[in-house]
């Protein structure tokens, strides 16, 4: 069809150009009058002329009709007719329509909400140019992901590889902005010059970093993030070129990043940065050693170069490095991971579980609406038979019914999108902080399309089978199908007509409902038990009543360790004197605080031939009161005392896991160790063994750790932990004030009770558990409604029978037994298939499960028991209603 013709036909079909009808009428009138005039000229009387003209022209109606046909789309016309009719029918049965719409709105809404989150977190490309070529890289860690790397190693990878356009290197930076008002610690990173080129990001103001900036001793420059620029610099465009003081050094601002820049890479490994400075790495410093690993690397693959090939090439380069410097490299392979996986990887399994669960909710919703439709098609049998008798074909009737289903589904989707936008907001608040980009999740066009697609699929799922059945029944009863029963009989039939076919179909859907609900309940149960087991794990310390805050002592004032030590002694003294404080300590980091710092651990007499292969152990620098305050158990020997000072013998305390891993059965006490560089630094004597502490998470075994006195191995990045006799939150302000009283230039941040850190360690699983529980709740509710509908329909059919039985002396219990007896096979089948399905699917919870089997019998049994109770209730309510009808009334029914 010519496009213009199509457009014109569409306009006509949609009634967009009604005036054309009037124009045609005028045209036809003109034509007739011209003819009449000609006939009159030829001598006919006026009436005769009019008659002749009408004869010659043919009927105006037919002409108009033919003309309109040329201006319309027959298929569209029929659709419009179906839609109008469908809307009318749905409007007539308000109860049915409301129930179906609500069910679909919940099903589609919950799905659209989870899709919104999955889309924002997992599916959308990262907001960088050609983001599919961005990868994270480094030696494969124990979990297979790239780990921290050393400068020299990475520098050689950069120089020798052919797979990457460029490789960027990133290191932590903890600067304090001193000028421009109150001292503030700014989240920041140091980056190699090509960092923003790799990401494909250009500054909105000024310039990016050049190779000349990225050299030791180069003039100090930095880039600001848009947020920081607005917050601290009033969005001043003249900020470029300005000098500011960071950690008492002067830096020049060279540019500002665009507002659209998302610090995802920085956030994944360090923190959502607001400031960037060149790495300017000095390769002559001792920390540039090949075995000193403290940098992150990522790169942009050349077009056409795959992840696997790049990994193989880096493997080869690393193998050569190991041959050249055997003592610096342990055997390891290189991991090259797409950046998106590196960023979203940790949360992917949880989101997939939720996506699957919410899909199950939608299936249940479909089963329920299908159930409603089956029930309704029974009452519509007469109408359909009438339509069939009046000449509607099977296809036409099915199309009509499918159109109704589609209308319902689209209505449900519309409401569902509203539900979704509410849900997304709530979920974003519930979500653990580890969900990257959740803040960007919003209902948008993609979500709308997803909801519409769901609507179409669901309408087929719940609508097609009932439609086919209903159409067949309609035709059959109208005498047009096989086994004709005759229109008359149906039109005259009453509600006692046999309903076996519908009953079986509806019972099958209830079985599906129950089975799916059981799967979700069992999954939620397993997760609930997981969270319980995690919270029961002994973290190795007692978080109760402990408040923490972090601060940083940097700058020339704290260049000497003695200044840091003087500060901390003074601080502990002041804090200890605060009312309500029972103990106070300082540490480089606290358990579950999200930081780990592993050092090579070399025991004299137990070092490997290649010291690079000695174990890595986490190091914690602490003050003497630390162990007692956190209730960390002392197993053997002693912990630190005030006598362990900068001048006394260097000492360490090791954890039980370290003792077991490094010494095996031997006694660690008295051994001496060197930490970090195997060739330099003091030998430290092991003076004590303490209990294991879960420093990284609760679900894994405790990682090996050693402790050094803060006085002998001084950290300037410090956590102040204080045990309170009252509520730890009340201490937050006085503690921050105590730090600032000593030095206004010290930034204080991350105030949190220790129990929050423990809660954070289970946050992701709690999130999954809550959502899964919510979905299971919806599923049970829908299943209960479905079951209730079927049972109460069955009971209503038998009201007369119940009346007879009661009149003959049956007790309520007997009636209940009679009805429940009918439902038992249905419920049992539902539970049995549900248990089988749950056993087959809960293992997909995989790594989320902890401390309990993924087919935990207790959870499964509890889920089944809950459903049995729901089923009993669904049976009892209709029976009670039937019993309430007096026997005499029941006998008079119909």
């Amino acid at each position, binding site marked *: 069809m010519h496009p213009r013709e199509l457009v014109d036909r569409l306009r006509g079909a949609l009634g967009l150009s009604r005036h054309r009808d009037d124009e045609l009428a005028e045209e*036809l009138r*003109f034509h007739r009058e011209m003819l009449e005039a000609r006939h009159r000229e030829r001598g006919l009387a006026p009436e005769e002329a009019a008659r002749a003209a009408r004869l010659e*022209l*043919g009927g105006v109606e037919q002409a108009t009709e*033919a*003309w309109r046909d*040329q201006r319309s789309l027959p298929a569209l016309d029929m659709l419009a007719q179906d839609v109008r009719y469908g809307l009318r029918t749905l409007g007539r049965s308000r109860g049915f329509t409301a129930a179906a719409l609500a069910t679909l709105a919940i099903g589609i809404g919950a799905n659209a909400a989870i899709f919104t989150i999955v889309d924002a977190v997992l599916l959308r490309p990262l907001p960088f140019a050609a983001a599919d070529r961005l990868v994270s890289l480094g030696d494969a860690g124990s979990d297979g992901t790239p780990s921290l790397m050393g400068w020299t190693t990475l520098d050689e990878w950069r120089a020798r590889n052919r797979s990457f356009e460029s490789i960027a290197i990133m290191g932590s930076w903890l600067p304090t902005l001193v000028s421009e008002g109150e001292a503030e610690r700014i989240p920041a990173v140091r980056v190699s010059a090509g960092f923003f080129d790799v990401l494909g990001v250009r500054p909105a103001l000024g310039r990016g970093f050049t190779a000349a900036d990225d050299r030791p001793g180069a003039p100090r420059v930095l880039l600001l993030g848009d947020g920081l620029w607005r917050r601290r610099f009033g969005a001043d465009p003249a900020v470029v070129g300005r000098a500011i003081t960071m950690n008492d050094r002067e830096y020049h601002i060279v540019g500002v990043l665009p507002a659209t820049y998302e610090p995802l890479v920085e956030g994944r490994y360090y923190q959502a940065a607001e400031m960037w400075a060149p790495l300017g790495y000095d390769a002559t410093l001792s920390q540039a050693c090949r075995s000193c690993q403290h940098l992150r690397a990522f790169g942009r693959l050349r077009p056409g170069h795959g992840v696997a090939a790049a990994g193989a090439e880096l493997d080869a380069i690393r193998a050569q490095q190991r041959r050249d410097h055997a003592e610096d490299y342990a055997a390891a392979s290189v991991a090259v991971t797409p950046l998106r996986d590196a960023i979203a990887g940790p949360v992917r399994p949880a989101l997939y579980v939720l996506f699957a669960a919410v899909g199950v909710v939608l299936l249940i919703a479909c089963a329920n609406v299908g159930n409603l439709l089956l029930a309704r098609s029974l009452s519509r049998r007469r109408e359909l038979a009438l339509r069939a008798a009046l000449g509607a074909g099977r296809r036409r009737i099915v199309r009509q019914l499918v159109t109704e289903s589609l209308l319902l589904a689209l209505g449900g989707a519309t409401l569902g999108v509203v539900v979704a936008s509410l849900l997304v907001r709530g979920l974003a608040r519930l979500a653990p902080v580890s969900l990257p980009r959740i803040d960007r999740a919003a209902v948008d066009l993609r979500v709308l399309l997803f909801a519409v697609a769901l609507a179409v699929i669901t309408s087929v799922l719940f609508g097609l089978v009932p439609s086919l059945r209903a159409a067949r029944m309609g035709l059959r009863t109208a005498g047009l199908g096989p086994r004709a029963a005759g229109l008359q009989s149906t039109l005259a039939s009453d509600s006692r007509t046999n309903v076996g076919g519908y009953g079986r179909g509806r019972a099958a859907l209830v079985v599906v409902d129950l089975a799916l609900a059981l799967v979700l309940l069992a999954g939620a149960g397993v997760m609930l038990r997981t969270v319980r087991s995690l919270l029961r794990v002994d973290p190795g310390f007692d978080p109760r009543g402990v408040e923490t805050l972090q601060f940083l002592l940097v700058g020339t004032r704290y260049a000497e360790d003695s200044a840091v030590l003087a500060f901390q002694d003074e601080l502990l003294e002041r804090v200890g004197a605060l009312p309500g404080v029972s103990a106070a300590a300082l540490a480089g980091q606290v358990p579950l605080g999200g930081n780990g710092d592993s050092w090579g651990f070399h025991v004299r007499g137990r070092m490997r031939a290649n010291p690079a292969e000695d174990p890595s152990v986490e190091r914690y620098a602490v003050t003497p009161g630390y162990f007692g305050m956190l209730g960390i158990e002392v197993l053997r020997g002693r912990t630190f005392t005030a006598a362990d000072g900068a001048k006394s013998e260097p000492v360490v305390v090791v954890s039980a896991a370290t003792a077991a891993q490094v010494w095996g059965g031997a006694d660690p006490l008295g051994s001496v160790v060197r930490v970090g560089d195997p060739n330099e630094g003091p030998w430290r004597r092991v003076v004590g063994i303490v209990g294991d502490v879960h420093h990284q998470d609760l679900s894994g075994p405790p990682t090996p750790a050693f402790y050094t006195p803060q006085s002998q191995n001084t950290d300037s990045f410090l956590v102040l932990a204080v045990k309170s006799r009252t509520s730890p939150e009340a201490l937050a302000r006085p503690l921050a004030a105590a730090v600032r009283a000593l030095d206004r230039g010290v930034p204080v941040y991350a105030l949190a009770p220790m129990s929050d850190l423990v809660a954070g360690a289970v946050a992701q699983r709690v999130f999954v558990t809550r959502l899964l529980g919510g979905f299971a709740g919806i599923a049970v509710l829908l299943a209960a409604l479905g079951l209730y509908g079927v049972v109460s329909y069955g009971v209503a059919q038998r009201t007369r029978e119940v009346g007879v039985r009661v009149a003959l002396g049956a007790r309520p219990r007997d009636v209940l037994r009679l009805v429940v007896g009918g439902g038992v096979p249905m419920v049992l089948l539902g539970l049995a298939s549900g248990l089988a399905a749950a056993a087959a699917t809960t293992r997909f919870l995989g790594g989320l499960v902890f401390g309990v089997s993924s087919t935990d019998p207790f959870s499964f049994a509890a889920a089944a028991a809950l459903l049995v109770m729901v089923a009993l209730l669904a049976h009892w309510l209709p029976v009670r209603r039937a019993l309430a009808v007096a026997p005499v009334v029941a006998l008079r029914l119909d």
Partner: protein
Amino acid sequence: MPAGKADVLQGTLDLMVLKTLDTLGSQHGYGIAQRLQQVSEDLLQLNQGTLYPALLRLEQRGWISSKWGTSENNRRARYYTLTRAGRKQLEREAADWQRMAAVMARLLGSAGETS
């Protein structure tokens, strides 16, 4: 339609209308009908239920355009005009028609010889 008068095939009518507009220039529906009746010596009498849908179809395909104008007796009337695309279509269809007519003529002629 009175007996003895020809039923018109759709494609044929299109060609006739295009040719008429080519000959007469701008013309209203009545004028087109009159012209066809004249040329066919009253063999062809167009029902308005055939003519106006055909005019609409030709316009939808972009072969003719229409606008309101004033008729020779000062009445408002819709005038149809051949477009450039319509002229091309006319040439194409006329050529096809002549080729087909020639084939038919040869076929019918030769059939006459053998029988």
